[in-house]
């Protein structure tokens, strides 16, 4: 695969290889979304050996991170070839071999901003799913104002000493490393004086604590840093210029969220229709409640329009054009659509949707209710809808700043 073959040939080749090698137990199990698969890391709970075999098979060919350079464990493919690879995975219902913030966020960022030593240290381990990463951006008093970084990193010899707190660090308790923003110059203006730092979660003084959400337990943590010593070499980019790195990473995050929520085409509608059939007791044919039917169709149309838009923007990128600030559009559209879908599902469930446990309620309804509660965070996390609207208004539409 040193010089990638033409796309058609490549597709045939991949297909044949998958037919021959992909573990049978994994076929048809996954929508192949960017977050559906093996998250890896040292703290990962025991996993089906086929998952690891699948990871190894792909790793050998660089296909856990197909667009990354071979030197760092990737396959050195261009975007078009990578898309073909994922299309074939999807066609067979296979999960991506390795997923997570390492692959989706810090990896691309290191490729752009990391130095050679950092790339060599981290990228191969991400490709192999050895190390799981989490993100340390938000702080308790920052909210949408991400540049309001208070966590201090003070230089002490060849180390920084880090003190402070991060919140909304997803899966921090299951991660091995965290990339975070720290304030290295408290006298500089907001966006300046921030550095982008990689921290080993095993360093003494790092303590993650789970945050309970209104939906119950959650993947989010608060992570406390007390006198954590981090080598100077772990700064990505220049000291005090971390904001540039941070912003580039945010773009990756938004588009991941948008895409991950998209799900399999039509699956949201199918779920709602099934729910309505169950709760209305209508096994087939037109749903007997015309108002619910209309609302489900409305939602189904929104879902299809969103998925078509996702596809259109992907095609635009494939065609080599820059799709601009698309990630803000997708983030808002995806998260609000998801919230509307859950809201409608709750309307369908009616009183059956009020359970917190399955005492007196169906477990399936209870899960849905918790998903509904969780969905309210989607328009807040990863840059709130308000922030995205600001971005569209200013960067895309060119509307002027307030006085």
């Amino acid at each position, binding site marked *: 695969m040193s010089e990638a073959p033409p796309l058609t040939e490549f597709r045939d080749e991949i297909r044949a290889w998958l037919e021959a090698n992909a573990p049978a137990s994994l076929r048809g199990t996954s929508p192949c979304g960017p977050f559906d698969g093996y998250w890896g890391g040292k703290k990962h709970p025991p996993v089906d050996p086929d998952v690891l075999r699948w990871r190894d098979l792909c790793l050998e060919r660089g296909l856990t991170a197909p667009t990354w350079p071979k030197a760092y464990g990737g396959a050195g493919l261009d975007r078009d070839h990578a898309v073909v690879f994922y299309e074939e995975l999807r066609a067979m219902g296979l999960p991506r071999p390795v997923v997570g913030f390492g692959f989706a966020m810090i990896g691309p960022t290191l490729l752009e901003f990391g130095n050679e030593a950092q790339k060599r240290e981290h990228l191969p381990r991400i490709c192999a799913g050895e190390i799981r990463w989490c993100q340390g951006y*938000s702080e308790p008093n*920052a*909210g*949408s*104002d991400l540049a*309001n970084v208070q966590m201090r990193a003070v230089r002490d010899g060849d180390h920084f000493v880090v003190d402070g707190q991060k*919140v*909304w660090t997803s899966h921090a308790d299951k991660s091995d490393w965290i990339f975070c923003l720290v304030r290295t110059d408290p006298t500089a203006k907001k966006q300046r004086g921030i550095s982008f730092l990689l921290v080993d979660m095993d360093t003494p003084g790092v303590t993650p604590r789970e*945050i*309970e*959400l*209104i939906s*119950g337990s959650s993947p989010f943590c608060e992570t406390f840093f007390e006198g954590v010593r981090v080598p100077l070499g772990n700064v990505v980019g220049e000291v005090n210029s971390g904001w540039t790195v941070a912003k580039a990473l945010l773009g990756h995050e938004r588009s991941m969220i948008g895409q991950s929520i998209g799900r399999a085409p039509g699956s949201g509608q199918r779920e709602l229709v099934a729910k309505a059939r169950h*709760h*209305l*007791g209508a096994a087939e044919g037109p749903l007997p409640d015309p*108002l619910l039917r209309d609302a489900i169709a409305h939602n189904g149309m929104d879902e299809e329009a969103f998925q078509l838009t996702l596809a259109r923007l992907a095609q635009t990128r494939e065609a080599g054009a820059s799709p601009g600030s698309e990630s803000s559009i997708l983030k808002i559209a995806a998260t609000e659509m998801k919230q509307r879908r859950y809201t409608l599902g*709750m*309307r369908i469930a*009616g*009183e*059956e*949707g*009020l*359970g*917190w*446990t399955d*005492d*007196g*309620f169906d477990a399936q309804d209870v899960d849905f*209710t918790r998903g*509904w*509660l969780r969905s*309210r*965070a989607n*328009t*807040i*996390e990863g840059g*709130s*809808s*308000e922030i995205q*609207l600001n971005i569209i208004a200013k960067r895309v539409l060119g509307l002027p700043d*307030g006085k």
Partner: protein
Amino acid sequence: MASEDSPLWMLLDEGQQMLASTAAQFLSKSAPVGRLRELPRAPGADGFSRALWAEMAELGWLGLQIPEAHGGLGLGFFDLAIVLEASGQTLMPEPFVSTLLLGAQALLLGGTDAQRARYLPGVADGSRLLALAYDERGMRGDLSRLRASATREADGFTLRGVKPHALDAHVADAIVVAARVEPGDAIGLFIVPRDAAGLAIEREQRMDLLNAATVRLDAVRVGEDAVVGPLETSEALLSAVLDRARIGLSAQMLGAMERAFEMTVAYLKERVQFGVPIGSFQALQHRAARLFIEIALARSSVLAAARAVDDRPAEVPRLAALAKAKCGEAFWQVAAEAIQMHGGIGMTAEHDIGFYFKRAQAAEVMFGDGATQRRRWAEACGY
């Protein structure tokens, strides 16, 4: 002086204003919303405070609308709505809806003298709790799909059926049960004491921290004296009881949305981002202002509906639908915006605002959701 065409009087008189402010003060001190976190949820726990219920009985609030002959104060439903609004502000899980609305209203509207004498004094003094078990799985509030049966026997009836999600049935001393009388087709209401043989009650866990239970009736025998309202009119009675429950629940929703809005406006003023209070962002200002308008409209609907119970019974079905639909929509909007405007902190279990969002959804679907209310409204308006 006012003709039937003139608008319902929606203001509180001086005594009612005092009642409102006393209740609001007392309850925000004695029943802060945060206690929802601590009220034990384990099976066997009541999920509300019996001590607080007794205190409110002392204050006369539980018997506000119960006739003096039965130990109450003999005031109007409007007065009761004032206390309900206050109780809604902190999302109290005490058995207001079950006991004071569903149970007591059934007896007030259709109970025999003996039934009223037996139960109402205990309601007023806080010693007795009531519940209503009418809805069933898949019924979605449509009485024509009710399947529980009341088989006529020589000396009474045998009740069979399963009624999930009956509010506070786990603590009720007596449960009013709706069942289809056989032979025949009418729906009857029967008051069943808690200790009746064949009655099983299984506590449920609700996400909004109201308390409910599944009521199983496995050949429960009751006498003729258990029938509430003449059998011929029981279905109409049930509808009237549910209308009052809708209005009372709407009053609670009103209090809740007002408090959630208040918390949100306070947060908008105090939370600083990008160097300014987030309440200075015009997009948030306009959204907050729209919520304020919706609350004002909901408030008028609740007050008019509550007054109609006392003054214009013929308008109750229409106004109950109005109040419930308007409050459902407004409360949900307020609560959803409250979460969004609070940002991440509002999503955490340690912040109070999430309780309002859960309750908003629960209240919206209880006793018929918005679409159901609009259908009832259209029927009442002749189209």
